[in-house]
């Protein structure tokens, strides 16, 4: 039998219902600028890019419709797949290493440095680790180019000075070390971001929980593994998601450091799309590469957000 509200209750509910609706409508107005901007900045260019990706076009004149030809070319394009593989390898430098090392560093600063040397020393180091994030990417890349320059770069200079001349190297020019050298630069750039996020997250953990675990005889490692990591998992997911997206669209550092070279050893999809779009005037193909990358980033984002929501649901149960 269906439950029915009593007449008085119904009367009491009616104004509330009206109120809720009017509040919703009111908020809707605030969404308009965002929606307009979203259409102008995201949807409109995205649709144009989609259209161009089905054409062959040099950027001037009329694009010629070629259907799926650009995507067929893309599937068989070894340089694109190499650039995509490089992107996945760069995930190690931009997501995996910074997340793990960032977590350890943040814990070290929070647990050890803060308690033994005070908040200001800890803040100093936190700011220091974050500094590469503030320096413009191109400037940082140029400085690293100098540091690793084979003839007069400081790294080779120091190696020679300590008698390790045989270790000196053309770091960005040798195909066996070029990607590795780019990765070192990217780890340096990226590390500060997780350190800052994780230090903020660590402040969120109730000290009573850790104290209770200590009383129960838990070691530092056990507390770190079973309590800290568990409690700051939302932040870890955010860091992994944002750094992964940043990796997939990386352009600036590669452009300045190596321009994808030597050969295509350090090429990445964003640079490859740029090269086709602007330098070789294959605008249609460049658009197809961008579209493929956008699709991959969207899929990845949806997967991560689903994982995060699932975890939040599990925790709330």
């Amino acid at each position, binding site marked *: 039998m269906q439950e029915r509200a009593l007449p008085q209750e119904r009367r009491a509910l009616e104004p509330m219902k009206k109120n809720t609706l009017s509040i919703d409508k009111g908020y809707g107005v605030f969404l308009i600028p965002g929606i307009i901007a979203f259409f102008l900045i995201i949807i409109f260019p995205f649709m144009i890019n989609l259209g161009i990706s089905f054409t062959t076009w040099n950027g*001037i004149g009329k694009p010629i419709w070629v259907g799926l030809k650009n995507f067929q070319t893309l599937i068989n394009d070894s340089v694109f797949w190499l650039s995509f593989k490089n992107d996945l390898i760069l995930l190690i430098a931009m997501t995996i290493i910074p997340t793990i090392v960032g977590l350890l560093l943040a814990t070290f600063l929070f647990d050890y440095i803060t308690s033994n040397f005070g908040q200001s020393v800890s803040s100093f180091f936190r700011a220091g680790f974050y500094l590469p994030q503030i320096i413009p990417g191109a400037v940082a890349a140029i400085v690293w180019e100098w540091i690793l320059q084979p003839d007069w770069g400081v790294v080779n200079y120091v190696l020679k000075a300590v008698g390790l001349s045989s270790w000196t190297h053309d770091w960005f020019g040798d195909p066996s070390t070029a990607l590795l050298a780019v990765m070192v630069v990217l780890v340096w750039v990226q590390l500060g971001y997780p350190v800052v996020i994780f230090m903020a997250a660590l402040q969120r953990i109730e000290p009573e929980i850790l104290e209770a675990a200590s009383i129960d005889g838990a070691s530092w490692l056990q507390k770190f593994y079973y309590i800290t990591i568990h409690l700051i998992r939302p932040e870890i997911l955010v860091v992994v998601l944002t750094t992964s997206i940043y990796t997939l669209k990386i352009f600036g550092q590669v452009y300045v450091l190596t321009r994808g070279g030597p*050969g295509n050893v350090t090429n990445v999809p964003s640079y490859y799309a740029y090269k086709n779009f602007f330098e070789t005037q294959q605008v249609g193909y460049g658009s197809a590469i961008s579209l493929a990358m956008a699709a991959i980033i969207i899929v990845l984002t949806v997967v991560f957000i689903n994982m995060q929501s699932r975890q939040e649901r599990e925790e709330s149960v």
Partner: protein
Amino acid sequence: MTTKIFKLFSIVLAAAMFLGMTACGTAAPRVLNLWYYEPPDGALGKAWAASQTQFLATHPGVTIHFELHTFEQMQATAQMFLNSSSAPDVIEINKGAANAGTFAKEGLLTDMTAEATKRGWDKILAPSIQATCLYDPKTGIQGSGNLYGVTDYGEFVMLYYNQDMFDKAGIKVPTTADDLYAAADAFVAKGITPFATAGAEYPAQQIFYMLALSKANRQFVTNYQLLKGIDFHGPEFTYGATEMATWVQKGYISKDAVNMKAQDMQNAFQAGTNPMMMGGSWLFGGLQSAKLPFKWNVELWPGNAISLGSGGNLWAIPSGSKNKDLAYDFIDITLSKPIQTLMGNDGGLPINADTTQITDPQVQQFNKLFAQLVASDGIGYYPDWPVAGYYQDLVSATQELMNGTKTPSQFLDEIAAPYNAALPK
């Protein structure tokens, strides 16, 4: 009544005339919109600044709205603004089929053929210099067709050498190919890398092309540049690629130069790290003003009848220009003898200078070499010209050749693919 009407009519007419005259007096002055990308302190920048001054002096009531851009901006975005309503009246654009040729083909540039003949520019521009100005309006291929651009300077690639290092080592400055190899071997024996170069930008691919040109004739250059098709495994390119790989193996050029930029090459030469450099005329002014602590000079590339070189980048008039008459006048001034002589004295390579007025002996030598190359039909253009975007393909492939990750044969296959794909069907 009639008198009244007549008076009223006279007043109205007088008022209309007065207003009309006032309107004429306050009409907005004409503006010449001018864009170029040569740095103000270089020979071209100085010459063109002087051209602006002269233009203003000879065109009262006209002002110039000038914007300084960069080469990279033009390379990447020229097609976008040329295709828009914000294109200027006169603009410096990059030469070659990939740039000027594409714009001409798409109808974005004014055909200047008739005006050039009228003003006598066709007599100032030597045939090998004019080749960079002519484009086929249907295909965009360079070398013949209509005059879509006008250059007022030339450029070529030559041997820069450090006289002090040669003197100290007791090695003769090379003038022939044999001398060049003997000098390179002698420097290698002393533990000095003879040539500065850079693999991440144009210098290394220019070595390959220069070596290939040492075995090439005019027909080969024409066939290659005009996309008539060539055998990439023929004697010219095979020699260029094989020899380039040998140069790395023998230590004539350092493997460490693979990721270096053109500026690194120039820095290495300026620092006295390498006694020789294959460099373009665009480096000459910079080296002169750097007041280097050693004696240096230039020679045509030893052993080559044909060297890399061409007319310079181009003055063009976008199709949408509303002040084409002013644009023609400005270009005319840049080609005039006084401006050209000024360019020569500042270390540029003018094409219409009064050479007797060039005072610096080093600049005289520099201009003499270029005149010699032009007179002997020795201008061989650049390897990346035939195909849009070929420059980056050549950079990648040359880096792999230098690193040894591609054999000369594989290198030639790699650079043949985009070239053959661009051949007219």
